[in-house]
């Protein structure tokens, strides 16, 4: 049965595409495409009724963001999603530094829901909403 929401653990990190994109320029299309996405386990995508390359809404205690769901080729890692570092990941990451200066960028409880009709914001739109500039 297709679920409305799925509880997962959010990880953020590097991908080669993100590395190439950031060196090409943060305003480049390559960078946008490489960081406004989320790797998901195919089984989790089935549970949610989400197809490859469609949008999902990821929500944590710290915020929510719409990103594109992409099937992870080296599954399984059910219950885990992976968003490359960038403004989209940071919109939902934990700012808790545990008194050592380091925010928590990995292992954050999150919820995923399908959002086919919601658009993925571009960098300027996202920054405008988040910071009003």
């Amino acid at each position, binding site marked *: 049965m297709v679920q409305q929401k799925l509880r997962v*653990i959010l*990880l*953020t*990190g*590097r*991908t*080669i595409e993100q*590395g*190439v*994109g950031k*060196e*090409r*320029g*943060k*305003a*480049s299309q390559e960078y946008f495409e490489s960081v406004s996405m989320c790797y998901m386990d195919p089984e989790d995508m089935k549970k949610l009724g989400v197809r490859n390359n469609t949008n999902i809404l990821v929500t944590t205690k*710290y*915020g929510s963001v719409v990103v594109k769901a992409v099937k*992870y080729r*080296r*599954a399984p*890692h059910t219950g*885990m999603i*992976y968003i490359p*570092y*960038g*403004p989209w990941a*940071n*919109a939902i*990451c*934990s*700012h808790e*530094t*545990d*008194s*050592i*200066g*380091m*925010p*928590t*960028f*990995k*292992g954050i409880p999150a919820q995923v829901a399908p959002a086919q009709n919601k658009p993925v914001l571009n*960098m*300027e739109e996202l*920054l405008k909403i*988040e*910071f009003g*500039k």
Partner: protein
Amino acid sequence: MTIVKSVTCPVCGCLCDDIELVVEDGKVEEVKNGCAICESKFIGYRGEHRVLKPKIRQNGKLVDTTLQEAVKKSAEILANANYPILYGWSSTSCEAQRVGVELAEEVGGVLDNTAVVCHGPSILGIQEVGIPSCTLGQVRHRADLVIYWGCDPWSAHPRHVERYTTFAEGRFEGSEWKGYLQKFKAAAGRKKIKRVMKQAPVKNPPSIEPVTPSEPPQKMKKDGRKLIVVDVRRTMTAEVADYFIQVEPNKDYELMEALRALVRDQELDVNSVAGISVECLEELVDIMIGCNFGIIFFGLGLTMSAGKFRNIDVAISLTRDLNMRTKFAIMPMRGHFNVTGSNTVFTWQTGYPFGVDFSLGYPRYNPGETTSVDVLLRRESDAALVIASDPVANFPKKAVQHLVKNPLIVIDPHMNATSLMADVVFPSAFVGIEVGGTAYRMDHVPLPLKKVVDPPEGVLSDKEILNRILEETRKIKLKQVEAA
């Protein structure tokens, strides 16, 4: 056409120094020996997203201005601030970082580098228990067991495996490249057979998938270098590993403590730890103890998940325990090409590697208090200078909200998320392409960066821009003292 050889790549902590560039009409046209990210940098440096003129915010919009005006405005911001943050520093040269320390002392601000959201916890762990480490040259020539824990060099340090570890041809240890090639050919063959089986009119075709090992595979008993990957998900590096161990998220600490107990010949009262059976762990410890020279490379999988610096503490302690039985070393996989350099420069100038607070007139260091994210979360800073980094894209939202509320100066060659939010933007020359300097590799070996082409007209180096801001700030401060 000129071919420039032995160029050091200014991308990641590997600092590969065997890059060849073909330069034509003052532009880099071809990159040889580099990885995908290296090529993107050497080709993308002159892309359309480059900032070529200083910018200043007027009526809510960034407009072009002169260099003198931008320097004056920045100096005013910094001289009038009570507690500015000077953040970034990891993608510039040691020479520019040194001027940065002087500027931070002059304005009484917080001097912090990107290690704070990267390997800051590793530094804290090292300060707790020390570090038995080595250079990458030693690893290349001697290591017969390489463990990547919580890191994926294939994505973040693409040539690390090829230049320094398993695929490198060392003096005493050979490259395992051919073995992996065979493995990939076999995997491709399996895929082909699977496809044919699907089309064949056979009910319940026999399984041809390799069985997921519940214990280390036979190839761990082979001669030569062995590669183990410990991660929460199967990464590209895990694909090439001889043995992949999938640990449950946030359970690295437990796993390493269990390994420490086993190295010390203690028995465990449980059946599994962090999702891995104890029999498997025992086999793993036997492999670790049985090697001649082992090395653990760890990444942000340890520093960013639960436990943070305690994970590093225990990883180093495990290495120390293993040294009672064999030779073992450990090294953090540093990200930006000169983040190690910024820690080193800050340490030899102030005594502390990051999060240095000059507000009392002398350097203070208290991670959790003087680190930039915490200062921003407490809303204490009243201005910021960001150089060679992009905190708006890499800091948590709540911290960025305070950063962009106050005057913000950005020095960066590209337009990035932080530049879009800035009040003053300085275009700068690319370190390692348009301006030379020194950078520290992840194993603390300093390497020279080359100037290959000239920067665009009117674009200065980070060091020169900082020097001008420092000079102007001093003038304003002097006037303030005289007026008082």
